[in-house]
């Protein structure tokens, strides 16, 4: 990618000349960025956003485990907001269990302990930082195992659970300002493009197929970034993401 520079900062660029070929380089925000914004939206009832699920069930589908990992880490952020240290500790243990299932346990052993220690100390800000690091370490370990696509599913799982929670909160106290938080067309396009370039083993996963379809439905509800996202759209996005998250998180008997 090369744009001409004449020694001065350009005041304007043409996005149409740069948008098409750079989708693989998108910076996906870490969950703590989103939750930092949510901090500024008042004090919603975070406790009601925490499901009763304690342990998730998984099969040999690696795509499923990766999605679960992201979902569970996002749940840890919700537990922080709800100041539920027991749920945070459960998150730490669950991250370890899922990481083991996918072959990256060693990379998160220490992080899991740090999460549990921070929960014991009710160090909420510290827990957020540890959860961000857990997400990064899991992804990095997967990349080192040449599982880049699997790593992207971890991010996607976190995004789905995060969006489910955010839409629930916005829906309960709707305003156009709050709904603007969902103006994320770049991320939806990015995740969609990643799902469409999954290797055959992952592409066949029923979870991947369902999420592809879900993102396709969500995309028009977000618009192109210029319009207000309506309450009806927020509700629809919540329904779609909830359905996907429920399919990812299935309780053990």
């Amino acid at each position, binding site marked *: *990618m*090369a*744009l*001409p*520079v004449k*020694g001065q*900062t*350009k*005041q*304007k*660029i*043409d*996005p149409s000349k*740069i*948008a098409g070929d*750079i*989708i693989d*380089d*998108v*910076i*996906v*925000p*870490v969950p*703590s*960025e*989103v939750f*930092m*914004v949510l901090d*500024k939206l008042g004090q919603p009832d975070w406790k009601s956003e925490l499901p009763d699920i304690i342990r998730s069930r998984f099969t040999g589908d690696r795509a499923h485990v990766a999605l679960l990992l992201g979902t569970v880490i996002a749940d840890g952020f919700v537990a922080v907001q709800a100041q539920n240290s027991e749920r945070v500790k459960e998150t730490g243990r669950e991250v370890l269990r899922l990481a083991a299932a996918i072959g990256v346990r060693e990379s998160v052993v220490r992080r899991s302990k740090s999460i549990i220690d921070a929960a014991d100390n009710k160090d909420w800000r510290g827990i957020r*930082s540890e959860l*961000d*690091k857990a997400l*990064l*370490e899991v992804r*990095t370990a997967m*990349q080192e195992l040449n599982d880049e696509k699997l790593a992207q599913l971890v991010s996607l799982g976190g995004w789905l659970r995060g969006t489910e929670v955010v839409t629930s909160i916005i829906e309960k106290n709707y305003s156009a300002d709050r709904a*603007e*938080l969902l*103006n*994320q*067309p*770049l*991320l939806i396009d990015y995740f969609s493009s990643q799902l469409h370039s999954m290797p055959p083993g992952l592409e066949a996963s029923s979870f991947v197929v369902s999420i592809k379809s879900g993102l396709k439905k969500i995309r028009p509800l977000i618009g192109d*970034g210029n319009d207000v996202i309506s309450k009806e759209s927020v509700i629809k996005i919540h329904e779609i993401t909830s359905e996907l998250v429920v399919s990812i998180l299935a309780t053990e008997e």
Partner: protein
Amino acid sequence: MRVGNKTLLFFLIWFATLVGGKYVGATVNDSLSFALEAAVDYVKNGFTVREDYWGGDLGKNEQKVIPQQLFRGLEYWFWVGTDTDGSKVSVHIYDKDGKLVDSESFQKTRYSGARVIPKRTGTYYVIVTVESAKEERSSWGLAYGYR
């Protein structure tokens, strides 16, 4: 630089070396160390530096465009560094319509930075440019922080 800052910088660089972003190599890590040096004072002022980094190399006047989701309500600083002697790199932020949205920026010998306070939540473009260079290719490393 005070001892406290040096300690912080050491840990930031150590972490970058340990787990860095997708393009991290030896010279990129050195470039990142300059970007993180620029970040130190901002950390003291409440910015959280994301522990994930981006980097690579570019020719003179070449640019790297990185799309990013930014959120209204947060304040961001982006820092880019280079370890290539005689090179200057810059970073600037543009909105989805291609308009420059830096609210502040600076340029030093080894690093530069740009601040943005998004007026809207949405898509932005982070653009890294090699402004001047003596070598054919210049290494760069990018980090960002938010509060």
